């Protein structure tokens, strides 16, 4: 049984230092999208809503409603969005209120 002990020592510390530091490998994680609101059009947004399989996108007049909570980070909208939609890179998404996960993004140029 001794081999377990010495092997373990040889391996060193593998534990993350989170929350003190963020591990570099996390850049490979899938994350919800972020939108270039100035590149969005109503037609594009309606197409994004159609490709989203998880009902995370909706539109009210010229606002895109993005439900971060419903998002499965499948990236279908990133693929369809062709430059108007990117990975946000955010994975620390925990929220104490459901409303904090509902984002409104103005479609097109102009103030939100």
């Amino acid at each position, binding site marked *: 049984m001794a081999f377990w002990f010495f092997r373990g020592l040889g391996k060193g510390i*593998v*534990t*993350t230092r*989170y*929350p003190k530091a*963020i*591990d570099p490998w*996390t850049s490979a*994680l*899938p994350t*919800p*999208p*972020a*939108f*270039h*609101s*100035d*590149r969005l059009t109503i037609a594009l947004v309606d197409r994004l809503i159609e490709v989203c*399989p*998880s*009902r*995370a996108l909706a539109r009210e007049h010229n606002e895109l409603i*993005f*439900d*971060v*909570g*419903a*998002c*499965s*980070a*499948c990236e279908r909208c990133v693929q369809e969005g062709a430059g108007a939609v*990117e990975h*946000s*890179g*955010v*994975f*620390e*998404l*925990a*929220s*104490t*209120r*459901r409303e*904090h*996960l509902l*984002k409104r*993004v*103005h479609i097109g140029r102009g103030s*939100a």
Partner: protein
Amino acid sequence: MTDDALAAELRRRALALFGRSLHIRTVDTGSCAVCESEIRLLSAPPYDLHRLGFFFTPAPRHADLLLITGPAVRAMDTALLKTFEATPDPKAVVAVGACALGGVYEEDGFVHGAVDRVLPVDVYVPGCPPSPLALLHGLLVAVGRLEERVAALTFDLAAEVER
């Protein structure tokens, strides 16, 4: 502070007072099993939730926090509510994953579609699945040791600078 916010703050302070250790009971309400896999890894060396004072417990009576996955399949209602009622106050309910937050499965005859249609939820953890680090973030937010970040984010790259 509103009554709601005050209650939430009190709950968080109470959990923080438990301070040294927080016991977690998990409930699967119909997940695809991948959220479970990430939860299992919380006790593995790369994440080691024990160093943060978190422990899994098989008994709801010893639990301070319920970690719930899945879209709240209706067939789990009885078991879920029994577990919630058997967990003494103060307790926190953490809903984990897109399914538990209302994504993926729409409400229908099989599922409620979101855990907060059955129980009051204190912390929502998005992801499909949320990685163990995202889960740690969620747990630390639940006990008030980390601030929530997502509220201030706009997810609009043309607006203010984020992060």
